[in-house]
């Protein structure tokens, strides 16, 4: 197949396909930006000889303090998770139509490899262009934002660049990952030219994603003990270990929550089927049990945002508790608490942004599901099923799995934050102090007289469970689902037009 043919077939689709390509590129650009930002923070050089010396050239404490930079980079990396979830959802946009088109290409004699080639080309090129756009935005933004204030302090680390190798790896790696993922998603179409001809009843999902969640939680919980262990052994932990624990654990937990939604859909579907009295609930119950992964696909980005948001809420609770701790032991918090809480406001903003992105993904997925089934819906309306019943069925089938899935995501997110940060603790050790000023204290003769050793009592302030914030997040998520359902119903109206009944 010549590249021209490949390109022609890759762009042969409708406007939906164009939208998918653009969104794929867009999410690739967002992900690139987030990863590059994280790398930049990590690239800030430590002052030689003093691991704890502040990087004096920055205005912001998150960048100045070496101890905080890891966390900042981590938070930036975490932001890529909802973005990646969005990318996954966009990949589904127009997928049934594309699958049919590719099946037709297969029937025309294309080999599975050629069909995969078409999709990989589409996703890979879109991803690469997106990543390059992200890189351009990053480099441009770097120039634009390089504005030292009157004291010569920088608001952002615009004076350092991540190593060129790392940048190249990101810009080239993201499209490759996207292409491989899309090739995997396409297995079904390439396996048989007919796509899915006859559905056989499959076993329902098992609750194994619970294991992944457990794994993620364990990785986060292990973060501090592992660090302490290395400290006690007086060796530096390998540089890859902390990010692997955090990113790997975070990904495991997120995949667990998202995949677990499949099981939740299936289980709630069966439960609903047992108790459903009205046709709307019956339709929703059967749909949930028949295609439980629809829930995972639909809610992926939203759940990722929930996870992130709950983690942020946990972090905020931790900082509040830390403030409380400082207050109790009478230490000067030096405005640090406020600073952290201000930072948390920024993080919350990021959560809101992630939720908006997720709501977009939700609309995409739901409308996709409705248009894919428009023939059945049109036939039902023709036989006299009121549209309101179909609307209720769609609302049921969205909300029933969403409520428990959001609850799980919020819980897991909170537990992740708890795992890493635990409870702020002070004291629990002996302190030696000398009250008598420099000369007396440094003189070995008098030192002992003025020095006293005292036991500093251990103070632990367990952070509150940020119920209010979690409730707000959950309510926001469910509101997003409801709004999405409302938008979906608009499409249902068009989808049930009688034209859909015309043969073939």
């Amino acid at each position, binding site marked *: 197949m010549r590249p021209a043919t490949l390109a022609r077939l890759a762009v042969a689709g409708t406007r939906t396909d164009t939208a998918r390509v653009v969104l794929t590129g867009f999410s690739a650009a967002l992900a690139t930006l987030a990863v590059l930002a994280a790398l930049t923070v990590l690239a800030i050089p430590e002052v030689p000889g003093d691991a704890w010396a502040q990087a004096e050239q920055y205005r912001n404490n998150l960048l100045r303090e070496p101890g905080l930079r890891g966390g900042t980079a981590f938070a930036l990396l975490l932001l890529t998770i909802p973005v990646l979830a969005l990318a996954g959802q966009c990949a589904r946009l127009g997928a049934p139509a594309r699958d049919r088109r590719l099946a037709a290409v297969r029937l025309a004699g294309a080999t599975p490899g050629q069909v995969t080639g078409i999709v990989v080309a589409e996703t890979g090129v879109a991803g690469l262009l997106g990543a390059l756009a992200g890189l351009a935005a990053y480099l441009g933004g770097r120039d634009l934002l390089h504005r030292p204030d009157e004291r010569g302090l920088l608001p952002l680390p615009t004076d350092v660049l991540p190593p060129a190798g790392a940048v190249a790896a990101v810009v080239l790696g993201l499209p490759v990952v996207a292409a491989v993922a899309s090739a995997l998603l396409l297995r079904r179409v390439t396996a048989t030219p007919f796509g899915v001809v*006859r*559905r*056989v*009843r499959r076993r329902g999902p098992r609750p194994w994603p619970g294991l992944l969640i457990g794994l993620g939680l364990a990785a986060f919980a292990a973060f501090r003990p592992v660090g302490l262990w290395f400290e006690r052994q007086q060796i530096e932990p390998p540089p890859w270990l902390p990010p692997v624990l955090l990113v790997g654990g975070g990904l495991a937990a997120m995949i667990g929550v998202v995949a677990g939604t499949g099981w939740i859909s299936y289980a709630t579907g069966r439960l609903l089927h047992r108790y*459903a*009295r*009205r*046709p709307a609930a*019956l*339709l929703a119950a*059967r*749909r949930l*049990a*028949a*295609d439980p992964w629809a829930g995972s696909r639909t809610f992926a980005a939203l759940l990722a945002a929930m996870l992130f948001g709950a983690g942020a809420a946990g972090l905020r609770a931790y900082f509040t508790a830390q403030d409380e701790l400082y207050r109790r032991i009478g230490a000067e918090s030096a405005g640090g608490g406020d600073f952290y809480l201000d930072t948390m406001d920024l993080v919350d903003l990021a959560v809101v942004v992630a939720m908006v992105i997720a709501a977009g993904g939700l609309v995409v997925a739901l409308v996709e599901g409705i248009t894919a089934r428009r*023939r*059945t819906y049109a*036939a*039902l*309306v*023709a*036989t*006299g*099923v*009121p*549209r309101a*019943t179909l609307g209720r069925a769609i609302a049921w089938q969205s909300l029933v799995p969403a409520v428990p899935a959001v609850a799980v995501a919020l819980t897991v997110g909170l537990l992740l934050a708890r795992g890493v940060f635990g409870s702020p603790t002070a004291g629990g050790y002996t302190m030696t102090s000398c009250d008598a000023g420099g000369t007396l204290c440094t003189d070995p003769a008098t030192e002992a007289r003025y020095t006293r050793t005292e036991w500093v009592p251990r103070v632990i302030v367990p952070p509150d469970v940020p119920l209010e914030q979690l409730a707000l997040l959950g309510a926001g998520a469910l509101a997003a689902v409801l709004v999405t359902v409302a938008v979906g119903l608009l499409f249902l109206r068009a989808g049930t037009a*009688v034209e859909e*009944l*015309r*043969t073939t």
Partner: protein
Amino acid sequence: MTELQARAVVKAYGPTPALRGVTLDVAEGEIIAVTGPSGCGKSTLLHCLAGILRPDAGEITWRGQRIDTWSEAARSRLRRTEFGVLFQFGQLVAELTAAENVALPLLLAGTGRREARTAALTWLERLGVAEVADARPGEMSGGQQQRCATARALVTEPRVIFADEPTGALDTLAGEQVLTRLVRLAREQGTAVVLVTHEPRIAAYADREVVLRDGAVDHTGLGLDASLAGGPR
């Protein structure tokens, strides 16, 4: 006695007229075939009669009442209670079992689940597909699916069944199994059937045949414009 009536029905999709003034009576318990070449407006007429589409002009009356002016909700209710609808394919809900698909209209009418299931099983039995009651449409043959759809159309014991090429996707024998049962049961129940088809052998199941051509009833059976044919004979 005439139950359903179309009077000078006109319907256009954009600039293309699909029906250009069709008048048709459906008597109680009558089986009537609407035939004609593809694109003649057969399906559009059926959709207008069944209250799925609203005609641009003309009237549809059901037992003396104009239904084309009714609200969508009222027409939905009518379709659910007095009418049954059967299409070529794809009308069963893929996730529901055969019995649940057949029970659906009863559930919509407020019947309890157990009672609805019993009725559904009875009708599946009458259509000769009791053995697939707990299978999903994807697990059945095309003929079985159409017989389930027929059971669903009949389960409310409607007054009229609208069937749009109900055997179009089936082989001869499977199609015959659908049609013979539909016609036999409709006669038993005194249900009228409006059967849209382009095949003479399917139209032969009806008591009467109405030929449409270019959106109008072709009384001449000539397949010519009136001007060329010299008017109806």
